C-alpha cells in the first residue's frame, strides 16, 4: 500500500477552497445583489430569480429620511457607548496594571469572566435589572437603557486591550519623566496617553462596530424605540424579503468597515489585531 504523500503547504489547499467558497464568494454575492433588482425581463438569474443591473437600491436607501435618521442614531449610540466605555475602563486598566490589586491576575480574571457568559443572557439579565429599578416607566428612557446595556456588555472587551498595553508600559519612562521635573498630569498626557494609543484604538474598533450593527441589545432594551443599521439590514431580509435592498446597505457597511480597518491598522501593532478573541486566554 502506498501511503498518502503530501507536503505541508498542500494542507492549505482545502483551506483556501473553503475561504473561497464561504468567505470570498459570499461577499461577491452581496455586491452582486446590491447592484441588481428583481426584474421579470431581467438579463440573468440569481438563485433562480430574474434580475437586472440597477442602482435603485442605493438611491432608495439614501433618499429615505428615516434611513438617514437611523444612520445618525447608530452613530450617536456608538460614539456615546464607546466614550463611556473608555472613560470607565481606562482608569480601571491603569489601576489593575500598576497597583498590587491584581497580583496573580485574579482581579483581571473577574473582569474577563463575563465575556464567557452568553451575550443574550447577559443582556436579558440587564433588562430584568433595569425593569426592577423602574427604568421602563417611560419610553424616553429607551435610548439611555440601550446605552447602559451596551456599556455593560462591551466593557470587558475594552478593559482587556487597555490592560494589555498598560502592563507592557515601561515604568522607567514614567520615572524618568518625574525625575526630570514633569508634573504627574504632564507625565500622563505626554508619556502614558501616547503610549497607550494602540490599546485605545483596538478597544474602539471592538466596540464601535458592534454597537452600530448588533441589534441584540437595542432590540432587547430599547422597547422598540431604538433602531440601528444592523436592524434595517435584518428587517430587509426577514420581514421585507428584499434581499437586494438589504445587500446594498450591507455593502455600504462593508466599505466603511474596510476603510476604517485600513486606517486603524496603521495605529495598532500586530498582536492587537485579533478583535474579539484577543487575550481571552
Amino acid at each position: 500500500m502506498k501511503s498518502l504523500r503530501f507536503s505541508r503547504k498542500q494542507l492549505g489547499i482545502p483551506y483556501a477552497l473553503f475561504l473561497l467558497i464561504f468567505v470570498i464568494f459570499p461577499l461577491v454575492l452581496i455586491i452582486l445583489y446590491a447592484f441588481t433588482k428583481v426584474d421579470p425581463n431581467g438579463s440573468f438569474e440569481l438563485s433562480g430569480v430574474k434580475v437586472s443591473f440597477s442602482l435603485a437600491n442605493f438611491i432608495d436607501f439614501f433618499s429615505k429620511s428615516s434611513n438617514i435618521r437611523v444612520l445618525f442614531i447608530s452613530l450617536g449610540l456608538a460614539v456615546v457607548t464607546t466614550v463611556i466605555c473608555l472613560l470607565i475602563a481606562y482608569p480601571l486598566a491603569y489601576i489593575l496594571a500598576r497597583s498590587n490589586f491584581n497580583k496573580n491576575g485574579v482581579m483581571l480574571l473577574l473582569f474577563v469572566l463575563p465575556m464567557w457568559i452568553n451575550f443574550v443572557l447577559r443582556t436579558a439579565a440587564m433588562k430584568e435589572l433595569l425593569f426592577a429599578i423602574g427604568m421602563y416607566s417611560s419610553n424616553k428612557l429607551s435610548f439611555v437603557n440601550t446605552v447602559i446595556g451596551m456599556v455593560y456588555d462591551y466593557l470587558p472587551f475594552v478593559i482587556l486591550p487597555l490592560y494589555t498595553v498598560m502592563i507592557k508600559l515601561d515604568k522607567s519612562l514614567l520615572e524618568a519623566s518625574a525625575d526630570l521635573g514633569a508634573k504627574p498630569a504632564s507625565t500622563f498626557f505626554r508619556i502614558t496617553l501616547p503610549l497607550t494609543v494602540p490599546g485605545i484604538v483596538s478597544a474602539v474598533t471592538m466596540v464601535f462596530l458592534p454597537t452600530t450593527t448588533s441589534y441584540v441589545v437595542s432590540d432587547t432594551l430599547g422597547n422598540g424605540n431604538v433602531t440601528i443599521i444592523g436592524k434595517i439590514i435584518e428587517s430587509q431580509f426577514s420581514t421585507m424579503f428584499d434581499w437586494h435592498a438589504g445587500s446594498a446597505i450591507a455593502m455600504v457597511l462593508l466599505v466603511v468597515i474596510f476603510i476604517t480597518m485600513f486606517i486603524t491598522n496603521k495605529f495598532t501593532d500586530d498582536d492587537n489585531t485579533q478583535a474579539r478573541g484577543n487575550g481571552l486566554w
Partner: protein
Amino acid sequence: MVKKIFSGGYVFLVLLMLYAPILLLVAYSFNMSREIGIWSSEWGFSLYAELFSNEDIMQTVLNTIILAFVSATLSSILGTLGAIGMFYSKQKTRKILNGATQIPIINAEIVTAISIALVCTMFAFGRSYASLLIGHVVLTFPFVVLSVMPKLQQMDNNLYEAALDLGATPTKALFTVIVPEILPGIISGFLLAINLSLDDYIITTFTKPSTFETISTYVFDAYAKGGKSSSVPALRALSTIIFLVMIIFVVVRYVLSTKSAKKKEMKR
C-alpha cells in the same frame, strides 16, 4: 493611603456594575415571585423544577451544546490545516490567505450572516443544519488559525526535517512532530470556538432551520420579541446554572494554567 482606598473603591464599583444584573437573576431564581422587582416571602427551587420539566428549553440546551462541539471540532480541523498550510507557503500566498482569514473577524456579524444565507440559498440547501454549521464554522475558524499560528512560529523547524531524515513519511511526521507541538494552540482555539458558538445570536438566526432553537435565539425570543415570555422565570434558573458552570470552568482553567506556568519555571 487615600489613593489606595480610592482606587480600590473604584475597582469595586465597576465590578459591582458588571455583576449586579447576574447576581439579581441568581437571587430571583430562588424566589417564588414570578416578576423581578417584587420579592415573595417564599424561597425554594420551584423555578428549577419548572426548568427541568420544560422539554422545549431542555432540547434547546442540548441543541446549543451539540452545535458548539460539532462546529468547534470542524473549525479546529479546518483552522489547523489552514495555519500549517499558510505557515509553510510562499510569502505571497501566505499574505493572501492571511488577509482572507481576517475577513470574518473584521466584518460585522450581520454582513457575514446574510452573506452565508445568500450562498446557501444559491447552492439550494437553504436553511438547514448544514447552513447553520457552515455559519458557525465561518464565525469561529479564524480564531483557531490565530491561536495555532504563534505555536508554529515558536516551533523548532529542524524537528520535522529530522523526522523525514529518519525515514518518517510526511504524514507521519505531521502527526507525530508538528501536531503535538502545536496542540496547546489547537486546544485554546477549540475553546475559543466553543465560546463564540455558544454566544452567537445573529449568524444563528440567519442560518438556522425555522424550528431549531439555541439558547441565544430562545432567550432573545423570550426577552425581546415577546414570544415564549411564559418561560422567562424558568430562564432565570437556567441563567444561574450557566453562570455557575462558566465560573467553575474559568477558575479550573486558571488554576491549571498557573500550575503549568509554575512547572515551566521550575524546569528553568
